[in-house]
């Protein structure tokens, strides 16, 4: 580990210009660079990337790197950004995301941020808990903490209205398109039978 860290530090110091964070080892330099770049995002996503409900901006702190990378790439390429006006705002910011090195630095910074422990109350008799565990928890985790192996993002801490919007977009096909992950989510969003179920499960996740 020390060796590997040293090596990546060495490579980084040999390079001039933007950092290629291909090695996932957190690197003080790229964290710092990411933090600076994130200032442009902080006005919506919050100073500590905790999200801002009023602005419809989800929390990004502690999010899975692979998901952040995917989302930013999709906004940058225009694959996402037309779902609703929040998404349009995000696409207006996509200039920042065009550069891979910058994206990587932001990802490194965000995934380095600490998140609070998630408490799942023992509410197994609660319909919302059951719905979440049966339809979502298998991929997003019992505590909605996300699952790296399944490329499923962390949902804990997200606002109910945001989640509800995304589920509706997946259901209507506005979000997603033809990628494998999008299709998975479209299929699972359709297992929620109606608006009440969507509201119920969104509200549950927002309490975690």
């Amino acid at each position, binding site marked *: 580990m020390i060796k590997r860290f040293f090596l990546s530090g060495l490579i980084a110091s040999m390079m001039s210009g933007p950092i290629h964070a291909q090695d996932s080892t957190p690197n003080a330099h790229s964290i710092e660079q990411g933090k600076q770049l994130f200032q442009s995002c902080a006005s919506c996503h919050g100073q500590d990337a905790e999200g801002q409900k009023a602005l419809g901006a989800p929390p990004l702190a502690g999010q899975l790197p692979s998901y952040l990378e995917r989302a930013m790439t999709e906004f940058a390429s225009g694959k996402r950004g037309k779902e609703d006006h929040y998404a349009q705002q995000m696409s207006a910011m996509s200039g920042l995301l065009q550069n891979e090195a910058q994206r990587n630095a932001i990802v490194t910074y965000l995934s380095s941020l600490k998140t609070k422990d998630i408490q799942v109350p023992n509410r*197994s008799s609660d319909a919302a808990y*059951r719905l979440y565990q*049966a339809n979502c928890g298998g991929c997003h985790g019992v505590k909605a903490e996300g*699952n790296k192996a399944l490329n499923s993002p962390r949902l804990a801490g997200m606002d109910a209205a945001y989640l509800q919007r995304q589920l509706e977009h997946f259901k209507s096909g506005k979000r997603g398109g033809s990628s494998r992950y999008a299709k998975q989510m479209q*299929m699972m969003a359709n297992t929620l039978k109606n608006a009440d179920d969507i509201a119920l499960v969104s509200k549950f996740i927002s309490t975690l």
Partner: protein
Amino acid sequence: MNKSLLLAAITLAVGFGLGQYLAKDNAPVIKANKPDKSFAGGYEAKQDDTLKSNADVVLPGSGDTITVNPGQKIQDAVIAAKPGDTIMVMPGKYEETIYIDKDSIRLIGVIQEGQRAELNGRGELNDAILYSGNNITVENFLITKYKGNGIMGQAGNNFEIRGNVIVDTGVYGIFPQLGKNGIVSHNIISGIEDAAIYVGMSDNIHVAHNEVFDSVAGIEIENSRHSIVENNYVHNNTGGILAFITPGLPIKTTYDVIIRNNFVVGNNHKNFGAPGSTVAGIPPGTGILVMAADEVVIENNIITDNKTAGIMITDHYNAPNTTIDEGSDPYPDQVAILDNLMLRNGYDTIDEVKALMLTELKTGNPDIVRAGKSNDSCIYNRHRYITVGINDFKDCEFNNTKDVVTYLLDEPVPPREITAENKGKIAYLGICTGCHSYTGRIVGPPVQLIQALYMENPQGLADYIANPVKKRDDYPEMPPQNYLDEETRLAVAEYMLSRTN
């Protein structure tokens, strides 16, 4: 709900309860016992089409005897055996998984001066014994330290599982899945994180004289018909005896279950089921739990010291960790509670039960609790118990089950027909659905989620089941299914991805 409506409802309920309370005479209303009449049972062999077959059955025990000594592999003896043979396993330690995929094999552990043949999974192996053959006997083993199942049957009929001691073997202790005409008796099972004895999607089953304890669920009859659970000692589990319809399974009913003459004592164990799994929702202190199952007769049990309730009856809407399956009737109908000895139950019950009691202005510790709807159910000598939710239960028209001695059949039933076309389906029913339901989480993730992950990729799923990789921290690890041949693995993957409920 509209606030004023809620207020009106509460006022009405309180007023009604108060009225009843005030009108009560000091003497309890004790109904005269009805004439001695037995439950007729719900099974007629004559009307059972699955019994019609001309297939010749090789009787178990009619062949040779093969002896296995420590240092040898039991599996080698199974491979060498032919239908009808008996395999005697001498005392000693055996660290292996045994697959029995042929018919009429008796696998017997020899007990010498108290020493048993011990199957030990070292905390690494998944299953001790998996059988898919018919007419299989598994007897007198000590089974310990496996991660998945102690003994699992996969679509085998006419099984006999008896005399085994099963300690700490993961998810299920004894688990006949999709079997007909089988007996589970005289086993001692403890420390199981789901059900110690789990009868899944089976028919004509007899579970008797077992001791089950320190497990999440003691004895579970799930999506099965014509079963008797009698003379068992069920103690210190989270929930003692369960009769369930689990939603999302391909066989959608549970009915005609007799639970009688059991000791159901102090089932107050902390629930250590995997979070989110069906059994993880059982409140500690549940003696007998009926969920959505029909024609369940509960008679002559000694039900004591279960802190939440002695008997709990619930529909799918009020059950923990349960989803709704449009193919299953969610209500437990025609449940019959006959005489049972009930003492010291419900002394530390859950808030949901307290709330139910409040609606009836009941005080004290509940013996019998019903949540949700139940049609045409009945109770005998209701005045003996503290109950909630059973005011609409009628008085039972029978008071015993003595006319139904057993649902076991005189002759072995024919094996299930397995063809190239239904191979995937049988494997799905006999194996996958033990842990995966369509909509909810029994143990593993729901089938609809697997469909989303593997859409248009049955080969990917077939490869995964042969060699699963743990992907979910809070789910038990899936055992490899590589004992199935490649063709069956692909067939079952295709079948799973094609399911719609």
